């Protein structure tokens, strides 16, 4: 205990606390900067004078994107996320359960089939042509079916199922329950915590993905939010007029800079709102994943 209060220890502690505070600042500042940019007057943003506080606060930028197609894209993103996540969870549970039964006769070949996909895949082009061949191009199915199971997540679920004592399922089996009933009535209710974590992982992945939509979605009316944001990054305000109504363009209260910032805030908002409450579940997911079964 003596050494803990020595001078060098104290110096280190001050350094450590300061360093971590700086790290937090560097982590949070970009998002904060986007926020103050989005509510500042476009001309001030262009001048590059904003750093700590917003200047000439105005909501014109938000008005502009709300009057554009923002809600359409947001609705698309919500739809893809909800449908995609439901499919992910159902399919992952269906795959995980047979793999978790120790005396299942098809366990070995099925495990081999699943594991091999972790190490080798056809790649972008064959998958693209496959999606095309199935006729699901430019529809929600192109976004939710090709990734219906994330094999890593599925293996985490399998490991959880495996940890449930056999005695619980055996008694149900003696009562005449089949595997579908056991999965639904016993296994899934007992794995709620892990499934909640997986739900979060899957949902965040869907919400954040842009590349699938870039490959498979051609109709503008079906774009998710991330594509809208990407187009604003690559192009700019009037490269994508339907995204944005030209509110405030004449007075320059709305510019590329403020629009981009507002779009970033809007796209990230759902995650920022949910994050503090579910953060612990995310961490738990990593921990289960690292304890390989």
């Amino acid at each position, binding site marked *: 205990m003596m050494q*803990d209060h*020595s001078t060098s*220890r104290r110096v*280190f502690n001050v350094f*450590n606390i300061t360093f*971590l505070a700086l*790290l*937090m600042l560097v*982590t949070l500042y*970009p*998002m904060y*900067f986007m926020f103050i940019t989005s509510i500042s007057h476009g001309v001030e943003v262009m001048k*590059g004078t904003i*750093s700590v506080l917003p200047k000439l606060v105005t909501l014109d930028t938000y008005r502009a994107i709300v009057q554009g197609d923002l809600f359409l894209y947001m609705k698309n993103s919500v739809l893809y996320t909800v449908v995609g996540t439901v499919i992910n969870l159902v*399919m992952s549970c*269906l795959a995980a*359960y*047979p793999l978790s*039964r120790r005396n*299942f*006769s*098809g366990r070995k070949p099925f495990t081999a*089939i699943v594991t091999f*996909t972790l*190490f*080798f*895949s*056809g*790649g*972008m*082009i*064959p*998958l*693209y*042509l*496959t999606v095309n*061949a199935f006729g699901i191009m430019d529809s929600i199915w192109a976004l939710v079916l090709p*990734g*219906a*199971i994330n094999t890593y997540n599925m293996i985490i679920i399998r490991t959880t199922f495996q940890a449930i004592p056999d005695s619980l399922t055996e008694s149900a089996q003696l009562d005449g329950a*089949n*595997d579908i009933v056991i999965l639904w009535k016993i296994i899934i209710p007992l794995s709620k915590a892990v499934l909640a974590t997986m739900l979060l992982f899957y949902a965040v992945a869907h*919400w*954040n993905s*842009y*590349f699938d939509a870039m490959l498979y979605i051609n109709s503008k009316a079906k774009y998710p939010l*991330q594509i809208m944001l*990407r187009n604003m*990054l*690559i192009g700019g305000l009037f490269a994508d007029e339907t995204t944005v109504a030209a509110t405030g363009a004449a007075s320059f209260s709305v510019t590329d*800079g403020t629009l*981009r910032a507002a779009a*970033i805030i809007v*796209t990230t908002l759902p*995650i920022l709102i949910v994050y503090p409450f579910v953060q612990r579940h*995310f*961490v738990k997911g*990593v*921990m289960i994943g690292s304890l*390989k079964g």
Partner: protein
Amino acid sequence: MNASITDNRPGRGRWRRLRRVLVRDRYLYLIMLLPLLYYLLFCYFPMYGVTLAFKDFKPKLGILYSPWTSQGGMKYILSIVRDPYFWTVFRNTIVLNLLNLLITFPAPIILALLLNELNNRRYKRVVQMVTYLPHFLSVVVVVGLMNSLFSSSGIVNSMLEGLGLGPYPFLNAAQYFRPMYIGSNIWQRIGWDSIIFLAALSTLDMQLYEAARIDGAGRWKQTIHITIPGIMPTIIIMLILSMGRIMNVSYQKILLMMTGSNQSVSDVITTYVYRRGITNADFSYATGVNLFQSLVTLMFVILTNALSRRFTETSLW
């Protein structure tokens, strides 16, 4: 030869046992049906689609019926090998990944060690919560943040100008691409990747520290002689795992960061595949390029698995 044999033939018995097992497990097979279908349609069928690299793709005939190319199916493979630009993107992929691994790998370990030294539990929890956050931002948002902060009129350049420096073309010039890519990776992952090391740290035996303290070892010595050796197995496993991913650059991010002037270093295999395959509809060529990546990846996975089995007693198979 006689009637009693028919029932006792080993083949027959095996068939009967198999049937009994299939009947017993029928619900499990039923449950497995949809996932199996998924793996066949969206993983194995595209895997078969790799044959496209050896075929002249005809949209009407599809992957299955397109004819094999000339030169024994090797037409595209040969032209890829002779394409100097392919070797440029191949090198870019490996250089970017090695640099990324070297520089980003130690960061979360250092963060975990620093967090471990904090006495104030609540402060520790706040730092963790804040630094995990960037992991949940989409690549589009991360690149958007970078573009806003580092543009020629962005806040970083205006601060540098205040010091009489710059402006620097962080977003365009080729020499800044790798630092920007790697730096943003650290920003995004340092917190999240530290979780696993923090977990390893929490399992260390307190008695060892007690004993070291009695022997007069200070915090620094304790860190060098107890903490770091204690988490070494975790460090090695994580290092091996990331070596297995040596070819997987985050091409989705690169695609967003790529500009005409940084393409000479930022173009990697997957972005090249995207441009040749999707943008130019040069399907066979692009599939061939991708195949090189898959094979090198597979090689690295097998290699790292062997290493892992040798050094850590854990392996993937």
